[in-house]
């Protein structure tokens, strides 16, 4: 069981004023309650993020609860379709599916205590709770009801219009929405706040590791450290373009010796993921310098070690939400080559912390350039770490959520 992490532990990685500022900011909303509602307590980025936020909010004197909606299999089938449709995939919805979605939200609204001063509802699954909730008076705003915010974690920049129209009728009832990137914003009559997601520098995935720990982890994973390692960590998903990464590696390999590691989670529950993984395995066959690692969801330590062992981090996505693996790689002091997609362009400063690319050839060229210019790669890694320290750590994320609470409760 890892030791609990406290706010003051972050003084090791952020300027001391940052923690002082967080405490004083929290003083402006001390005692005002906060509720997060999402659809799962384990698995996925939102649950991972909330598991780290909640104790820190508590420590800041903000009473916080985290509730999870429950539903039958049919409900989650519908919400998976809704999720995919909002990300732009064509999906079919029947009246029965939409009725099942609404009924489950109604049941959860009756079961949950949604009476906090600020309620943050994450993603589409519980978005309709607001329809079935009589918003009780908030303790201090002088206005009826707590303040409700819908937090959208997905890339909804090009949603299937029917799915968005269905969801929009609920979203417009909120006091505001949070999106991760400006391009995800919609035409809405409510304020749309921009809060980038973040990484936790003290988590198992990002904490410092010794050289011995890194070496031992790579030995266990069967990845030799005898030549430069190119690493992409991501689901086996077409939008992450793992085949494109292999093709880029092959172009590099004609001139420069290196290894390629593609590490991702299992694809048991995702038929398309299993197919992509099979294609990746086939593409890598016969090359002992390509390592396809299917890691369990909790393999944070192994991912950390791989990122620290890598010479270059690749995230060659063609479509991306925010792509926090970029910030993770930069935090480990590595140059990152990323696809020109989603939040990757927000994290990579061209030529300073890495490069964005739009083709296999562009990726191969940048890999070769960095392999031949290790001093530049090292300098980029340094810039990347400092840039992440300023913009993409959990302390900044907490501060912005507190600022949102201040704004909502004192407006």
């Amino acid at each position, binding site marked *: 069981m890892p030791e609990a992490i406290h706010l003051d532990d972050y003084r090791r990685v952020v*300027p001391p*004023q*940052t923690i*002082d*500022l967080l405490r*004083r*900011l929290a003083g*402006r909303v001390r005692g005002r309650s906060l509720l997060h509602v999402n659809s799962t307590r384990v698995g996925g980025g939102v649950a991972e993020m909330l598991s780290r936020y909640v104790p820190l909010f508590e420590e800041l004197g903000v009473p916080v609860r985290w509730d999870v909606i429950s539903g039958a299999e049919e409900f989650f089938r519908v919400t998976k379709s809704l999720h995919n449709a909002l990300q732009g995939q064509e999906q079919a919805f029947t009246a029965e599916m939409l009725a099942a979605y609404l009924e489950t939200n109604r049941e959860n609204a009756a079961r949950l205590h949604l009476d906090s001063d600020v309620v943050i509802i994450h993603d589409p699954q519980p978005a309709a709770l607001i329809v079935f909730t009589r918003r009780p008076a908030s303790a201090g705003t002088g206005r009826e009801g707590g303040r409700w915010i819908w937090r959208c974690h997905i890339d909804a920049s090009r949603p299937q219009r029917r799915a968005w129209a269905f969801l929009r009728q609920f979203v417009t009832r909120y006091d505001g929405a949070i*999106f991760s990137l*400006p*391009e995800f*914003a*919609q*035409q*809405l009559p409510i*304020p*749309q*706040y*921009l*809060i980038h997601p973040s990484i936790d520098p003290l988590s198992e995935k990002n904490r410092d590791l010794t050289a011995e720990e890194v070496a031992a982890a790579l030995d266990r994973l069967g990845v030799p450290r005898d030549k430069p390692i190119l690493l992409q960590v991501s689901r086996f998903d077409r939008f992450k373009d793992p085949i494109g990464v292999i093709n880029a590696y092959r172009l590099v390999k004609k001139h420069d010796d290196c290894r390629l590691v593609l590490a991702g989670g299992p694809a048991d529950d995702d038929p398309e993921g299993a197919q992509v993984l099979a294609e990746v395995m086939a593409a890598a066959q016969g090359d002992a310098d390509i390592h396809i690692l299917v890691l369990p969801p909790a393999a944070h330590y192994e991912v950390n070690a791989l990122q620290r062992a890598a010479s270059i981090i690749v995230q060659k996505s063609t479509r991306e939400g925010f792509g926090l693996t970029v910030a993770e790689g930069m935090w480990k002091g590595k140059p990152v080559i990323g696809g020109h997609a989603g939040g990757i*362009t927000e994290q990579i*400063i061209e030529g*300073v*912390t890495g490069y964005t690319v739009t083709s296999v050839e562009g990726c191969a060229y940048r890999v070769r350039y960095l392999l031949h210019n290790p001093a530049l790669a090292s300098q980029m890694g340094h*810039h990347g770490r*400092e*840039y992440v*320290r*300023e913009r993409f750590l959990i302390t900044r994320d907490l*501060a*912005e959520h507190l*600022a*949102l609470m*201040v*704004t909502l409760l004192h407006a």
Partner: protein
Amino acid sequence: MSSEGAVQPFEFVACLELREMLGRVAWDERELLAGIEDAPADSLYYHTRSYFLRSRYLSAPYPNDFATWAAIQVRDRVLGERLAVVDPFDFGDVELLRADLISVIDAHLGSRGTVPRVDAGEPFHFMRSTLIDVPATARATTLEEFRDGLARVDGSAIYYHFYEPARRRPEADPLRWLDALGRHDVADRVRALHPSMSSLDGMRAELLAICDQALGVHGA
């Protein structure tokens, strides 16, 4: 003449921004112009002055979002450069800043046969921000304490006191406090600084140098 100790203490204030998307985008320079015409004042502050709050470690090519977008996304370096020299700190009233930005873009478009637009780049997203002030622990009743406060406060406090005259609390004006303290010499030298030419750390260094010189600190 100094009247140190006789005035209200100067309370340092840090700040942060809550960013809000306005849902308006520009794909070409005419849309940028129209957006600037309609944007709320907070949006103009966000895209110009508060660049300095957001760019503490690495800076963008130009110190305002309009210039950087024109140069990088539209690849119209001429407009980028023309917008870059518009100094938001020259304008006491945001409407004068708006008028200047509009006239620069309008004149530029008037000299072109076509309206430059984004081809492979990203559109301009109009944003605004709410500035949340947070009391810092530092306070000063003397110039020495003021200097010590400057040295240890978060960079956002430098921004709040020296870059945001329109959105800060009136009592957070360091020039007024220095004048009340009787240190008109220091206030005048601070007044002569050019915030748009410095990062927050650079500004802090310049302020400390002024204080050290006024205090007769050896080596200043």
